[in-house]
């Protein structure tokens, strides 16, 4: 693994404004169902400068992006955005993350979409695709080489 320096955590000042009021975990659907996921605690750890621990744990990957915390936070901290930033830094630092993200990124970079048009089934187990549904061919970038090259260039830059 290449040694990369962690980018400046621009969200830290936000985290320090947290009153620990508890609106975010009480709104969070994941807190109820996944042990150890609590947006209020995530913000507290960031405020204490312990984001490295968070990025090494899998906890930042279990947000379901419902945005209730972002909507309801009285300090407009948005635990959701802090989690997204932690994810981006974790990936930049090449820390472990769900492999689904790598597969999706690869697909979008190479084909312009997350997945190719699928064969789907009707309730009576008949197979259908876009053509048999009478739908036009799926769209994709017309100059795929330029599109792919641009995204590769962006992902290769020292940014998160």
């Amino acid at each position, binding site marked *: 693994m290449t040694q990369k320096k962690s980018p400046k955590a621009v969200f830290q000042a936000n985290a320090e404004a947290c009153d620990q009021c508890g609106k975010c975990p009480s709104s969070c*659907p*994941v807190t109820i*169902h*996944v042990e150890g996921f609590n947006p209020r605690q995530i913000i507290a750890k960031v405020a204490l400068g312990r984001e490295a621990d968070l990025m090494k744990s*899998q906890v930042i990957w*279990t*947000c*379901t*992006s*419902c*945005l*209730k915390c*972002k*909507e309801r936070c009285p300090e407009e901290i*948005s635990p959701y955005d802090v989690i*997204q930033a932690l*994810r*981006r830094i974790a*990936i*930049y630092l090449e820390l472990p993350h*769900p492999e*689904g*993200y790598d597969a*999706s*990124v690869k697909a*979008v970079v190479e084909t312009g*979409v*997350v*997945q*190719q*048009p*699928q064969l*789907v*089934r*009707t*309730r*009576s187990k*008949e197979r*259908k695709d*876009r053509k048999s*549904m*009478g*739908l*036009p061919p*799926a*769209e*994709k*970038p*017309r*100059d795929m080489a*330029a*599109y792919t*090259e*641009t*995204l590769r*260039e*962006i*992902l290769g830059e020292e*940014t*998160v």
Partner: protein
Amino acid sequence: MKYALYLGCTVQTEQYGYEASVRVTMPRLGVELVDMAGASCCGFPPFSSVNELAWLYSSARNMAIAEGMGLPLFALCNGCHLSFAETKHMLEQNPEMKAKVNGKLAKEGLRYEGNVRLVHIFELLHDITGKDKITTALSNPLKGLRFAAQPGCHAIRPSRVGRPDDAENPKKLDDLITWLGAESADYPEKIDCCGSSLAVAAGKATLDIAGEKLKAVKRRGFDGLVTTCPFCFKVYDNKQRAIQVTVGDRELEVPVFYYTQLLGLAMGLKQEELGIDLNQSPVDAVLAKIGGA
């Protein structure tokens, strides 16, 4: 009324029932849809969790295509619509980032100005088309049915970037349901998440979260769940059997429809034209009640 139709990855690669029902119902309301040549993923997910510039570039790229067409951008998917709204908001606040994004777009000869008009399906049907136009287009009103509305998280939050309905008390989808002749009713779980974004990291949690909503919809006596979000539909309809297994309740059956499928039925269109044969949830009893074509 002419709009650039942005399907997004999930709709164009698997949620054909949504796309088909939109394409067949909208023109009957005087809405002309124009496909977007060269469209690509909006970037949300995966890039929003991976690289901010890649995300903003991806959304701005599609908005630039719509600007080039000179048409408002009608994004079918809640997630794509929010991605465009957030990107538009961020690039308005940050001219430096906008210049950076445009530097990348130039490689394909594209340019994002920031004057694109974004349109959500709630706005297009509820605010622009309106009750009179919709009700006069119906030949088979849906009587004696009561549906729960599922607007979906990204249609209503976060309000600070501008969403098409209220964050805590959304009502437009309920109105749209009642305009078809059916009933709708508020319920406490209406603004709750389907959990689909969790599927990458914690598939079981998605099914647990989705199960809570299906249980509530059933317990409250609704005849079905109605949404315009492809991610919500994918979980509540396509994964309903898996939800039953996970929550340990084989009887947890809830018919799920895209709003535009019900709209089409109320217009007297055939089930196959609306892709209803692709719905995996037990919709047959509701369809029998609706009757018609």
